[in-house]
């Protein structure tokens, strides 16, 4: 069995509950979230689930560099990009084909592209 990270990327606006961000409307956003909940329950029932979660917007991120004598704390996300990770799953699957099939359903549920990446080991 291999563990895979399935991540979804988006912009700051996608996190705005009042407008519904990239979902189009607050209603569409709620629908996507409800569908993602159902998908998560299925992952648990079928034994693929390790962990999953949605993140708050990239503006809430803080970067810490502890390599020097004193830790340096910087406001904002690590990557200088318009799009940032918005949520992720960690699943356990026998092979990439299984993971890709699960990712396809995840993508449908959350209305976004899903990146699949294996963990080391």
């Amino acid at each position, binding site marked *: 069995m*291999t563990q895979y990270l399935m991540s979804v990327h988006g912009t700051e606006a996608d996190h705005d509950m009042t407008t519904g961000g990239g979902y189009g409307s607050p209603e569409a956003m709620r629908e996507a979230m409800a569908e993602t909940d159902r998908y998560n329950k299925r992952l648990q029932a079928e034994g693929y689930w390790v962990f999953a979660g949605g993140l708050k917007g990239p503006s809430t991120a803080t970067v810490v560099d502890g390599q020097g004598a004193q830790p340096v704390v910087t406001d904002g996300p690590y990557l200088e990009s318009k799009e940032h990770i918005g949520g992720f799953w960690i699943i356990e699957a*026998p*092979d*990439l*084909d299984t993971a*890709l099939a699960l990712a396809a359903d995840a993508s449908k549920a959350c209305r976004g592209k899903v990146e*699949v*990446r*294996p963990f080391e080991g």
Partner: protein
Amino acid sequence: MDQAYDDAALARIFRDEYGRVVASLARRFGDLDIAEEAAGEALVVAVEKWAADGIPPNPGGWLTTTAGNKALDRLRRESLRDAKHQAALMITDDTPPEPTGPVEDDRLRLVFTCCHPALPPEARVALTLRLLGGLTVPEIARAFFVAEPAMGQRITRAKAKIKAAHIPFKVPAVADLPARLDAVLAVVYLVFNEGYLAGEGDSPTRVDLSDEAIRLARILRQLLPREPEVAGLLALLLLTDARRASRFAGGELVPLSEQDRAGWDRSLIEEGHALVRECLATNRPGRYQILAAINAVHTDAARAADTDWLQVLALYDQLQRIDPGPVVALNRAVAVAEVDGPDVALAIVDRLPLTTYHAWHATRAELLRRVGRSAEAREEYDAAVAATGNAAEQAYLTRRRRQLV
């Protein structure tokens, strides 16, 4: 001794058997690197042993057994060196000997691994030629005009991804098979076209990619005898390749209508026609089958003037429903010109968004010539010459331009 020993026989056996050996070992050991290294070692042993004793009656079985033993040796050595691999000590040769008959599951698994959609397309092509076709990295690099280290890296990266991401070594589920098979057929078709369109002037060391593609298509046909698109692709390649000798004369491309049909390879044409008939009987049409049928109509005509253009057009109409892209529309327009006239065809061609495609310019130039718009035709020939990198095609287009009145 079953066969005479010589370098050519040896090279042929190695190339034919390589995919089978690697596939069998990859399934048994679950690791492409181990499979490849062991296969390579077995070939070295074979060179020495067969030179002395002659080629054994079942060289493929011999190579698979020898390579399997080499892989076990290596795993044992490594497990002694590295405590982490102690488990490998438990590996014993308890798998039943591979049947060398019609059951070819391992090679089929290998094809789907090599052509997995999670790999970049250019890596799929390289991996398929390397692992299934048994070509060496330098051969593949030369064939695609890529520097050897770059090609080596492309293959290494792809194998590393297969390993890290656990791309499985299995035939896809029935539901996924059509899409996955499509990716496999696309690789074979690309290999063929790469060889076919390159035309003349190949260096003698260059592997003939068209021959390789036909060999791969024959393997697929053997592995998936009931998939009509596989039969269709093989038929398409055979019917195209049958015209190879007539495609060039004096360093110039010869279009289908002007080719010396006596120079066509009749046995390839007959084999291709039989496959097309089989596809028609199966009646599950697809892209490659329709393309093969179009080529069957062309190779059925004793003279260019005898071509059944209505039939060709009907097939293109069918193809366009499956594949509504502009390249199909362009090829269909050539048939439209024969059935409804060049002005009707020109109106279609003018609307296609293919201005960077040499064939669009070449087709447009011919149609403009036929409707008598010589000045515009001249410009289009120039644009076509500029857009193609193929010297034989440039020579042909330049002559056509000169012949304009």
